[in-house]
């Protein structure tokens, strides 16, 4: 480590170096946010960004290539691909946000309990282990087969898949501090379990959980798209990006715009979210700094 610091110090000097260092610290976070910003705008202001209905079928304008009227062309039902892409951002972000909020709630709750109470640890541990046996996507398919395709059910199944990992992270942080002196001190002055766990212990786990949730968000977008592509996720005609790719598969020879645009959007969203995760991790946990992308 020490020779690395000397090495960087010799490279630049003064102001430029300081700026460079600060930029390097956060550059993944910033690039990620820049990538995600237009997608978030699209999702929030969908109805203001396009006057076209993503669901209205127009037999006279099927499979039109990109033009001024339809910047991303139209699909096999004559629906505007741009409008569908914009409303598709809503589906992806809703699923990602919804599943990560649920994951945070259950993951933190069960993680804290599992790290603190030994009797609960045994039960919760078995439960998370048995969920983590399955290759992730297979578990998603199994759950969707049981509860049926719908957007809400995608949220549920992503949550079930991701909660075990958050439980483990939270549990590990709680276990690490269980015997810390501040815990004894708090106990001595009569702080109860609830206050101890929520005010003193939970903040220790908050950083790693934030990082995990931002990667989880990216992953939720991919899972939603994959499930919808297989016909097990958001049911058509809702404009999910995965649905759009599934509908486009019969037209890859004739209408390239139908498949390239939703896939590009998924890539952009996942890339942006992963970069935000990397940036947060570097900020919150410098020990793992080397693992970053840029």
């Amino acid at each position, binding site marked *: 480590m020490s020779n690395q610091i000397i090495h960087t110090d010799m490279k630049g000097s003064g102001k430029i170096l300081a700026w460079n260092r600060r930029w390097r610290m956060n550059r993944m976070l910033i690039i990620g946010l820049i990538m995600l910003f237009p997608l978030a705008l699209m999702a929030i202001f969908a109805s203001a960004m396009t006057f076209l209905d993503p669901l209205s079928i127009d037999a006279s304008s099927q499979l039109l290539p990109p033009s001024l009227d339809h910047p991303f062309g139209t699909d096999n039902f004559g629906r505007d691909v741009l409008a569908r892409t914009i409303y598709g951002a809503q589906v992806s972000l809703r699923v990602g946000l919804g599943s990560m909020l649920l994951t945070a709630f259950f993951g933190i709750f069960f993680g804290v309990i599992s790290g603190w109470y030994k009797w609960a640890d045994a039960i919760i541990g078995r439960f998370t282990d048995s969920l983590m046996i399955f290759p992730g996507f297979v578990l998603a398919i199994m759950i969707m*087969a*049981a509860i049926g395709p719908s957007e809400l059910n995608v949220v549920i199944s992503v949550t079930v898949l991701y909660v075990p990992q958050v439980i483990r992270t939270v549990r590990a942080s709680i276990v690490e501090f269980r015997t810390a002196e501040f815990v004894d001190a708090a106990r001595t002055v009569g702080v109860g379990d609830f206050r101890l766990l929520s005010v003193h212990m939970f903040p220790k786990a908050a950083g790693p959980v934030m990082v995990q949730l931002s990667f989880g968000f990216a992953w939720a977008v991919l899972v939603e798209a994959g499930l919808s592509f297989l016909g097990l996720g958001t049911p058509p005609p809702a404009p999910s990006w995965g649905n759009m790719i599934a509908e486009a598969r019969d037209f890859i020879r004739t209408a390239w715009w139908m498949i390239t645009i939703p896939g590009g959007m*998924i890539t952009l969203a996942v890339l942006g979210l992963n970069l935000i995760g990397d940036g947060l991790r570097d900020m919150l946990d410098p020990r793992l700094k080397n693992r970053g992308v840029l």
Partner: protein
Amino acid sequence: MVEYALRRVLSFVPTIIITLTSIFFITRMIPGSPIAALIGHQAVGAEQMEAITSDLGLDKSLIEQYLEWFPSVLTGDFGTSLFYEDSVVQVVMERFPVTLYLTTFSMILTILIGIPLGIWASIRRGRAPDYASNVFSSLGMAMPSFWLGFLLIILFAVTLDWLPASGYRSPDFGIWEWLKRLILPVMAQSLAQIGLVVRMTRASMIDVLDQEYITMARAKGLPESRVVLKHALKNAMTQISTVVGLTFALGLGGSVIIENVFALPGLGQLITIAAVRRDYAMLEGGIFYLTLVALIVNLAVDLAYAYFNPRIRHAT
């Protein structure tokens, strides 16, 4: 080492029991009826409906169903598929090789490209090769594999007409006939895995290269290639092998989608169709065998990990 291996293999037994139990309860958790899917739009009387229900054992309680189901699956009998009208295990075994070829070839490609690229990025840290490999791996991990599959089809099958767009031939038709239909699926499946392996290889190599014994090895005047490939890589391998195992499990999950894109008649395609039709027996059997492969690979990785890392081997 032998003792560790034995212990690890024995721990397999409860894992299998947990796997089977989870599969049973998750797939039947919500009483969504497979009967509706079975009869489709035919008009069926209430009596006939009842007959089908009791035929399938769906009139019994979940626990009763489980107690009947569990002993029979232990003997490898997952029952009869509602739609294929054939024993589940038979159908699964027919489809199995396709999935195994796909995942194994992807894994080989992932290791051959991912590990060297990760090492290269780590020794050229902060320079062009590092940036290039980072952009490549981040993009690879962000692209949905099924979408990448279609892009490959557009490029190599539609535009260039070099390879078939989809379908499968068994090796009996000749090696090339078999192989050329696997090239695009393997590429589509591998890219995300390569991205992950590159990143993890780079990270663990950098951890190791920063340690003092590496400086020592360099100070002794050992050639750089020997320092990197022997001293550093052997230690980094413990972490890398774990990631490779994880990647394989990920790949098995991903193969489900890839098989759908390229119309490969593998286990993944079978599972998806069974999921859509709620063909419980097929779904349970298919998922069990897919998970079993992941577990076996995981076991192999753990043993390799112990081999590379004596601290694990000798711990109680």
